[in-house]
């Protein structure tokens, strides 16, 4: 009998499910499971609603134009709510981090997929998983303990500086890039690779001219997910990047980001209903929209990729 259908395709035997029989228990279970599956949608709407509730009131008091064009984020001292320093800091730190993390992660993926012998692979893959499982607070501490003193000695950087966060978040995204790009490389049909070998290509040539172009959208999707993760990273920035109210591109000095600033302000005593309290939600909403756009782009790329080879 085995796993195959009468026609040998292994497709589900839909006709065996007696759908026409009235089974209240079955319907109840199905409904409950559907509600569980819909929980993600409910939660997403709850997030949007929760963020918008205070954001809208906040925008009634501070105009969205001032919020998104202001270049000074100093709500406590000056009452200035210009979010550009936070957005710029977020993009600069996340951008710098992926510039470090992407080449390293992609190299690791290519080595594991194309070059490493099976036994080496079996040892190295769990090590990358360990790296992926280390909580961000440990990485933040690492930035302060080792990266910051080094940067201070070599480049005269401040104790709290943006480069701390760039380097450490760059390392944190290596496992994301490597595991997702490796999946993308693995999904490329062996025929393509063999075809290149048959034409006399070396392993590297086959990869550079055939395998990577074929896996391109999947690899790009992994880059975008790493970027999104870096944009949302909170603890490393909170611990090691410091705070800066001004729009700056000095990566050796302190810098604030959207996620880091939410956590920093939340640790203080926030009077509920104050402008400062509401501004957290406006900053959170901005962060949510930025990561949503990156994630959607990544999703679209991955689906295009899946359609090509499945």
């Amino acid at each position, binding site marked *: 009998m085995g796993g195959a259908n009468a026609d040998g395709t292994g497709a589900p035997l839909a006709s065996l499910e007696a759908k026409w029989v009235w089974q209240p228990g079955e319907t109840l279970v199905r409904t409950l499971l559907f509600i569980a*599956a819909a929980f993600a949608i409910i939660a997403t709407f709850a997030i949007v609603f929760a963020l918008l509730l205070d954001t809208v009131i906040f925008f009634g008091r501070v105009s969205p134009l001032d919020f998104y064009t202001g270049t000074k984020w100093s709500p406590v001292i000056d009452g200035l709510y210009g979010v550009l320093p936070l957005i710029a800091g977020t993009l600069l730190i996340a951008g710098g981090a992926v510039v470090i993390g992407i080449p390293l992660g992609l190299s690791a993926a290519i080595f594991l997929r194309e070059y490493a012998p099976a036994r080496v692979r079996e040892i190295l893959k769990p*090590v990358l998983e360990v790296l992926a499982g280390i*909580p961000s607070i440990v990485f933040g501490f690492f930035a302060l303990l080792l990266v910051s003193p080094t940067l201070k000695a070599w480049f005269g950087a401040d104790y709290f500086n943006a480069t701390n966060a760039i380097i450490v978040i760059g390392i944190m995204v290596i496992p994301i890039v490597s595991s997702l790009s490796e999946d993308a490389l693995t999904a490329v049909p062996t025929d393509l690779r063999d075809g290149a070998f048959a034409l006399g290509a070396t392993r*590297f040539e086959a990869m550079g001219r055939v395998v990577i172009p074929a896996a391109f959208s999947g690899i790009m999707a992994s880059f975008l997910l790493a970027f999104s993760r870096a944009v949302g990273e909170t603890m490393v920035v909170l611990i090691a990047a410091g705070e800066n109210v001004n729009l700056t591109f000095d990566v050796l000095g302190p810098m604030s980001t959207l996620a880091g600033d939410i956590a920093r302000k939340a640790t203080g005593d926030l009077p509920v209903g104050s402008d400062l309290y509401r501004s957290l939600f406006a900053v*959170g909403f901005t962060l949510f929209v930025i990561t949503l756009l990156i994630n959607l782009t990544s999703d679209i790329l991955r689906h295009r990729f899946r359609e090509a080879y499945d």
Partner: protein
Amino acid sequence: MKPKSRVVRKAKEAGFVIIFLAGIGVALGVLGVLLASLIVTAAPYLTPTLITNYANYQDPTRAGYAAAIAGTLWILSLTLIFSLPLGIGAAIYLEEYSHGGRISRILQAGVSNLAGVPSVVFGLLGLLVFVRGLHLGAVVLAGALTLTILVFPYVVITAREAIRAVPQSIRDAALAMGATKWQAIRRQVLPAAAPGLLTASILAAARTIGETAPLIVIGAVVLQTFLPYGPDSPFVALPVQIYAYIDLPGPEWQGVSAAGMIVLLLILFAFNAVAIVGRNRMQRMRW
């Protein structure tokens, strides 16, 4: 294009292999340096009193993590109690009941979107809905509910893989014997997927233990000198307490926070070891 000699091509290949090796070398090196520096920094403070003493911001030798460890265990248990049935239920629906129509695409998009939301945003959601909206205050239950929403997509994604790994023939055989769909799932598919579901649960647990930012935002207290007494108790979690110590100046406080991280990592590695063993056992199972 001028054909290149075989030697040049081979040399180029060797050069790039070295670059690729460097990628993984950096990852390994960082991991090694990170663990070594953590252990060296933490060593003087790794004493039994570390886990029996409460928070203390004056004397590093008397500072500890008792309330934080208990708080983390409370949050972890409640989060798992909420998120596992919900997440595994959602995975069952998506794998067994939905048939790839528009609704199932929307449900899946919801899960993958939720997985991409930055953790600090979940903190804002928890602050508004649970702490203020439901008037729970910054208590264990509010923290657990917030983290439930955060880990839900991870449970769904890993549980779906476990359920998908069960061969179709198992379901067909149960249905052919006259089982209803739910009977087939409950008596055959779920037991067969159990090792994978265990792995899913442990990965969710590991993720819950390490989360800091959402708990900071909803307002975990950092000077708690009593153990949490229930879901309605104020709480502090292990990573939140570690952060409070990091924020203090001086190498002795670095030692206290590094020692806390060793405790955190030991708990995480224990969980992950169980997950890896479970997964290997699952892979050995062949139908």
